[in-house]
């Protein structure tokens, strides 16, 4: 039996022949959000357990990237809006059922918090830094005294932000590829791993790198586990889920996903990291770069492929 569908006279931009309403802005934002969540989580974690001295890059230097990444990510989100002058409407209401509302509010709190964290360490970064306004000086003293509670808040918000980047997609029942609850933890773990990769790249202390590399290896393991489970879930699912999985299992995204994201972005860096832990000389930037690139491409293809998948009727 042959079945064909024609839709007469409908050729709406970005809707037909298949949905393409979200372009590069969304994956870039998801990536920067995940990266920021990763850096902030570990900065918070090592502050809470009192390892600021040993883990200097994690706690002090890498978090300087976060406000920059978040502002760039927010700018990308803003570019994506089609009715930009009304963006402030996000902040006139709290919509419990809408993941995007949750995300907007989380960013409202976490972006200033990341700036406060960076400001607290700016005197270590730029010796001789002086606040022009006296109030800032007093504010800094209060912040420096309360780093632990702030670290707790930052860890919590970082997890919400990391999970949110996945939930944003998984909440859409109409796009079968996205509509998998495993996307929340998967994007969180991927975000944490890219955050670690950035810190490892920046760190000059061998001891710090060793600790972080071990954590990163565990995260890569978890990520592979979650990816396999995601596909098991799809293949055991309904027709639309199987069709979604087939985009990655023989379909147009097969090479990019398995070749670039899984092998180049997860397995090869993991092998390189194992060699590094065993004492081989591997340039530190290579596994970090591969993980960062793999994470970015992962988000790009998830956003693009998801929009192709739909209900059949």
């Amino acid at each position, binding site marked *: 039996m042959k079945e064909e569908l024609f839709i007469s006279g409908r050729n709406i931009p970005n809707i037909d022949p298949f949905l393409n309403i979200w372009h590069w802005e969304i994956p870039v934002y998801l990536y920067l959000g995940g990266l920021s969540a990763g850096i902030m989580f570990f900065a918070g974690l090592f502050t809470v357990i009192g390892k600021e001295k040993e883990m200097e890059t994690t706690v002090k230097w890498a978090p300087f990237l976060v406000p920059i990444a978040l502002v760039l990510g927010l700018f990308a989100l803003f570019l994506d809006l089609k009715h930009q002058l009304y963006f402030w409407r996000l902040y006139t209401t709290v919509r419990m059922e809408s993941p995007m509302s949750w995300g907007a509010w989380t960013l409202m709190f976490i972006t200033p918090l990341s700036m406060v964290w960076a400001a607290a360490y700016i005197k270590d970064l730029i010796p001789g830094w002086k606040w022009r306004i006296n109030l800032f000086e007093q504010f800094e003293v209060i912040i420096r005294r309360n780093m632990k509670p702030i670290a707790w808040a930052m860890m919590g918000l970082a997890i919400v932000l990391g999970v949110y980047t996945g939930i944003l997609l998984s909440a859409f029942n109409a796009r079968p590829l996205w509509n998998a609850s495993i996307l929340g933890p998967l994007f969180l773990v991927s975000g944490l791993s890219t955050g670690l990769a950035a810190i490892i790249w920046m760190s000059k202390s061998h001891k710090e790198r060793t600790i972080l590399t071990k954590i990163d290896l565990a995260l890569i393991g978890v990520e592979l586990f979650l990816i396999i489970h995601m596909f098991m879930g799809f293949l055991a699912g309904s027709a639309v889920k199987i069709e979604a999985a087939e985009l990655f299992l023989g379909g147009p995204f097969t090479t990019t996903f398995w070749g670039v994201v899984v092998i180049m972005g997860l397995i090869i860096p993991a092998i390189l990291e194992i060699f590094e832990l065993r004492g081989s000389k591997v340039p530190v930037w290579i596994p970090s770069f591969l993980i960062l690139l793999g994470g970015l491409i992962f988000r790009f293809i998830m956003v693009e492929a998801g*929009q192709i998948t739909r209900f059949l009727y």
Partner: protein
Amino acid sequence: MRYGMAIDTAKCVGCGDCVVACQTENNVPIGYCRDWIVENVNGSYPNVEIELRSERCNHCENSPCVRCCPTGASHIVDGGIVMVTHNECIGCGACIQSCPYDARYSHPDGYVDKCTFCQHRLEKGQSTACVEVCPTTCLHFGDLDDPYSDVSLALKNRTWKVLAPEAGTKPQLFFLT
């Protein structure tokens, strides 16, 4: 009060009058449409059958677009009609992603637009533009809660289906088969 529409797929000839009427009535920008015709061809010649469907927003009872809207611009009004308040919409596209029927589009002015069941006409006691012009009277519109409304009577006497019931959206468009 619960508005719904029944579309007689056996009577529809796919002329597209409903599409043009809607575009005219609602000032839909050129190149866009709030309703459209789907030709579902089954089999191959000589054993072939065609189902013609005039489709539009399903005004779902469990509407994913209203759920995912971050500002509350998408909302449900009296009669179960899903509406968009233009000056609350930020154009994020979440509702477009959430619709299993691809019934929403991004208006060139930025906000999201879609079928309103001609709410401005219903308020005046008129029916929707698409129903008024249909030359084969294959569109039946009315209150589903009223057993004697046009739509209720059409559903009572015929077999019907809804689109993608597995999406769980409880659509209010019924296709008479």
